[in-house]
């Protein structure tokens, strides 16, 4: 699974993207966020305010209950501010 982080999430986590094996017990976006928080203090800080986090799976915005699977490209980022 490819994980990508943008803007201040990238800065707090400390990298822009990484490859990880999805643990067997992780089946949804919400479970994935809980698992990521266990990976280190940077992840915990970055993911603390869930209201400020948007999730895209394979380039589509998704909600907390959306299924995730090995092979997905999953991006975490704050609300967008372009234009």
């Amino acid at each position, binding site marked *: 699974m490819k994980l990508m982080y943008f*803007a*201040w999430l990238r800065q707090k986590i400390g990298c822009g993207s990484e490859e990880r094996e999805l643990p067997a017990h992780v089946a949804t976006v919400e479970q994935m966020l809980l698992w990521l928080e266990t990976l280190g203090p940077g992840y915990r800080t970055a993911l603390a305010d869930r209201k400020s986090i948007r999730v895209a799976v394979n380039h589509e915005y998704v909600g907390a209950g959306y299924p995730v699977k090995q092979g997905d490209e999953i991006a975490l980022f704050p609300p*967008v501010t372009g234009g």
Partner: protein
Amino acid sequence: MIRVQQEDFDVGAEIARLTAGNRAIGGLALFVGLVRDMADREKIDAMTLEHYPGMTEKKLAEIEAEAQRRWPLEASLIVHRYGRLEPGDNIVLVACASPHRDAAFDACRFLIDWLKTEAPFWKLEETGKGPKWVEARDSDDRAKKRWVAD
């Protein structure tokens, strides 16, 4: 047509290319977003626009297709820049051409409103107090909602 690029764009040249050879076009509306030198009473020296390559192009193409579905457009264009920009620099160009002005105006407004809440771009401002990520505005969400539930 959509483009995501680091380099500047020439508004006149873009319009000329967009309308070339199409005599059905009776009106063209455009919006150009520029870098301001102030934000929340703080001076901005520059800003860096980050985006999500792949998803950005996909979202912009979807937004443009939705505008084409809603209005009788003869041509449309979104050009969005990324990278480091300074006050006065162009950020984004949205242009819509139609036989009549109402569709051109409405579609142009729709595109910029939707782009602001859907396209994965983030602005990092350089201020006298250091770098600062721009926060999303509720007013942008409200602007988008005007176009929902039509």
